């Protein structure tokens, strides 16, 4: 049976890893290549890098990070953050990433999803979504709104509709981040995750709110997620990936145990 994936997420700014709380107050916590290698050896099933470098003229630094990572780790990894075009996708994929993640740019120009899927295959294209809970309205019947630009710009767009649209356009996977839960370490947004994951035919990675192994168990069962993104709980050494997987295994959740 397919294993549920545990995916550490590294936010990288100008070549250095950071982790923010609710997108604010980022602090540097290390070399992304070393951290990726460490997680690879610890049994991460995949790794996600978000390039949060502000200025696009510094983008080359991230490409170099991707090249170094690709020489050292032999599991899939994806790169997102500020990717706007097929040309930028190509740079990241040629540098060695397995997948690229598009977020704000896909909301502004949904065509980039289908162009990317045609050029590289759907399996390469992850749609990243930042979502906020709002009162349900005719424009947002699910009560979950798409927000772009790193959590700053609400779009009056329904998250469920956007997820289904992205799938139709050729996205191969959804990385679903709850802005309300992000950085809290109080647990994933289960209602949102379940809603999206059971309404699309592509895998959903739950993101935002992981603090304890129980949170992963919840989102991988009740939340119907196919994979769970983690950050703080492993970045600061609170848990190892092995500890998390041992716990999940005890809960009868199938995870990869030998690596």
């Amino acid at each position: 049976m397919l294993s549920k994936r545990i995916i550490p997420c590294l936010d990288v700014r100008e070549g250095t890893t950071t982790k923010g709380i609710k997108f604010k107050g980022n602090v540097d916590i290390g070399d992304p290549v070393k951290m990726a290698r460490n997680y690879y050896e610890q049994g991460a099933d995949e790794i996600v890098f978000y390039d949060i470098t502000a200025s696009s003229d510094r983008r080359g630094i991230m490409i170099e990070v991707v090249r170094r990572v690709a020489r050292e780790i032999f599991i899939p990894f994806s790169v997102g953050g500020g990717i706007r075009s097929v040309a930028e996708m190509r740079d990241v994929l040629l540098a060695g990433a397995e997948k690229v993640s598009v977020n704000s740019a896909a909301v502004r120009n949904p065509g980039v999803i289908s162009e990317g899927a045609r050029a590289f295959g759907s399996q390469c294209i992850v749609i990243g979504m930042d979502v906020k809970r709002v009162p349900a309205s005719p424009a947002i019947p699910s009560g979950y709104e798409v927000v772009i630009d790193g959590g700053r710009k609400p779009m009056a767009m329904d998250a469920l509709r956007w997820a289904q649209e992205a799938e139709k356009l050729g996205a191969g996977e959804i990385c679903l981040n709850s802005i309300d839960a992000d950085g809290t370490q109080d647990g994933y947004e289960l209602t949102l995750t379940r809603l999206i994951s059971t309404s699309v035919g592509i895998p959903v990675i739950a993101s935002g709110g992981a603090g304890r192994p129980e949170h992963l168990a919840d989102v991988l069962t009740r939340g119907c997620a196919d994979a769970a993104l983690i950050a703080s709980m492993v970045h600061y050494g609170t848990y190892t990936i092995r500890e998390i997987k041992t716990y999940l295994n005890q809960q009868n959740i199938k995870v990869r145990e030998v690596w």
Partner: protein
Amino acid sequence: MIAIIDYRAGNLASVARALDYLRQPWVITKDAEVLSRAERIIFPGVGAAGEAMANLRNLGLDRVIRDAYASGRPFLGLCLGTQIILDYSEEDDTPCLGIIPGSTRRFPRGLQDRDGHILKVPHMGWNRITVGEGSHPIMAGIERESEFYFVHSFYPDPTDPDVVKGRTDYGISFPSLLGRGNLAAVQFHPEKSGRPGLRMLENFCRWRP
């Protein structure tokens, strides 16, 4: 020297990087002459069967690949490379290389896991290989519980059951490791499957069929 066949089908560099890590010399090539001299051949691939076969024919590689297999040198198919060594693929209704009799089929819709959840397609992520009796030399030294990274919506279905050396469970039990003579072919990506995948590639580099 190991030749990685270049037919514009996906990221061949990841296979090359894994071989670098194993300190195995490689060349990425579409040159029939280079392929005919290579000690071993890797036939990778990501993408769609129709386009892949069109590329192979346009580059004149379809015959070169059949000849390479017929020459008895170790030959490894990966993912799409594995699917198109069969006669036919349901993807784009594509006639394929016909090195191994059989078809490549799409996962049926509505497959369920043991708890009744609908299984998503593509089958994306880590899964096990259950090897049959006798296994295969490229699995040597790999723990039974090891998992490998898959990303695919179609799976190889050879006619001859003896060709199937390993199976994987995703709602149905599908062939994920094929072997016949000097040919080994896998549905997953050993170059992205961590230590067990690297071990498999290393086994292939040493394999004397």
